[in-house]
């Protein structure tokens, strides 16, 4: 097996043996169970005349609640990615674990890429698995399915990969705690900067709007989250948003347009740059 795949396998094996995967599966099943129960309640809610809500209204409420639930999932994924990636290299350098391994014919770039790959596989599996379970539960509870489930998984998964890449890059130089905290704060600041950008859009103020644009370029998590929101919005809701004009764009939990292709191309380039930076940083570090 090529060294990159050995390191990737080792990374997956470690998270599994440390029971992180088991903990995430149990927590996800609990959340899915509770949310299924909650979503089911929407279908039993009655209006002032004692009648249950019409299907369209159920779909609309469900779609909005599903966006909030997905925000929680993306938060769990981002948090897990940052916390796990933060010490990925630094802890093994500090403990001396990498010393005997790097004395083998193993390149430092192979360590970096292997670790990234191992966690990327876990993130992709978690994004796909949790989305499938949650959407199946919502479908069972309300009969509603979002319009673009595959894109949803891709956007949420990519958001986790961004945090993984940032955490890994920081891990080549900083201690695990410091790297993890920086990655988390960056993620939150990116989201808030996105909200600020929305306010700029609502106010038609280019300078404030640019805060969001720049933050999306520096850390594409919020830009990808917007893609996830778009994937969850039913056509009827999108039509309402578009009719409302710029005011509708000032909502951090609503998205009128999908992320532009140029942004997605930048995300791909961002991954390449961040991995390149991680490799360079680790190769030039004394261990």
């Amino acid at each position, binding site marked *: 097996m090529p060294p990159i795949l050995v390191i990737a396998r080792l990374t997956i094996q470690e998270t599994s043996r*440390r029971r992180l995967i088991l903990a995430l599966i149990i927590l996800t099943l609990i959340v899915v169970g509770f949310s299924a129960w909650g979503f089911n309640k929407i279908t039993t809610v009655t209006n002032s005349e004692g009648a249950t809500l019409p299907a369209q209204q159920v779909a609309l409420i469900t779609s909005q609640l599903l966006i909030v639930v997905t925000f929680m999932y993306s938060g769990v994924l981002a948090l897990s990615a940052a916390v796990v990636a933060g010490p990925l290299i630094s802890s093994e350098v500090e403990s*001396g674990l990498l*010393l005997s391994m790097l*004395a083998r014919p*193993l390149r430092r770039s192979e360590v970096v890429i292997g670790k990234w790959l191992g966690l990327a596989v876990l993130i992709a599996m978690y994004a796909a698995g949790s989305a499938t379970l949650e959407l199946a539960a919502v479908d069972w509870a309300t009969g509603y399915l979002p319009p673009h489930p595959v894109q949803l998984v891709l956007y949420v998964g990519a958001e986790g990969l961004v945090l993984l890449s940032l955490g890994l890059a920081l891990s080549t130089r900083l201690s695990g705690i410091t790297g993890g905290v920086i990655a988390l704060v960056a993620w939150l600041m990116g989201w808030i900067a996105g909200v600020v950008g929305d306010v700029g859009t609502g106010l038609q103020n280019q300078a404030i709007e640019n805060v969001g644009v720049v933050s999306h370029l520096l850390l594409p998590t919020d830009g990808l989250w917007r893609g996830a929101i778009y994937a969850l919005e039913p056509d009827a809701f999108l039509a309402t948003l578009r009719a409302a004009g710029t005011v509708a764009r000032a909502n951090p939990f609503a998205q009128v347009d999908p992320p532009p292709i140029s942004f997605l191309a930048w995300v791909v380039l961002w991954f390449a740059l961040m991995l390149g930076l991680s490799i360079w940083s680790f190769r030039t570090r004394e261990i």
Partner: protein
Amino acid sequence: MTVPRGEVFGFLGPNGAGKTTSVKLLLGLLKPTSGEASLLGRPIGDLNTRRRIGYLPELFRYQGWLSATEVLALHCELAPLPRSSWNDEIASALDTVGLTDRAKDRVSTFSKGMQQRLGLAAALLGEPELVFLDEPTSALDPVGRHDVREIIRGLASRGTAVFLNSHLLSEVEQVCDRVAVVDHGRVIASGTMDELLSGTAVKVRVEGLDPAARGKLSSFGDLDDEGDQLTFTKLKPERVPDLVAAIVALGGRVYEVAPRHQTLEDRFLQLLEAEEK
């Protein structure tokens, strides 16, 4: 400085002298700011050369969530050794370091000494041509230290060069063919044990010598003056009667004369003192 194949080479020095740094430089774990070196005929940093090298780091740590066998299998895979040889290699390495009965246990349950034994087993995989052992007995009990000495002798007998970093000078003295003493990143002495330990130290218990008289004894070589006790750190045995006669002639009363062969520790301290001056 050259370490030939099949030789056990001791690398000595005080804390912070640069011993571990030297090993890391040779293994390509650190990049030199200047100078050059080669391992097994190839410049340092060459990836293929590392296939033929074993290394036990001073800071030894292995995946606690793997079993001893799994850790060694990982090293077989990274080495890389043919998969068909893994079982034999792992069984032999575990047997050599005395961990056969703990092969399936998680490393997290191992004591520090057992982890060091595991590190030694990893360094022995694939019959390397050169083995770096950085303080290989720091966590071991006397039995473990004896075992490591036997392992080092075994490696040397089959033609493997051993580069041994150690603070335990008696250990180095017992197993090394040659040694080098390093201080502040510079080799201050090197040679075979015989070359390095020439001469005898002579301890004399004496009274009645004033400072001027003690000064006149400088012709008998370096003197370690501790009041009643004078130690001549490098004196040939045949000069001992002359020394006693000189002390008596200077008015001194001799109570005890104890010649003893210089140990590596004596020589080591002597070299470091000379370096400080």
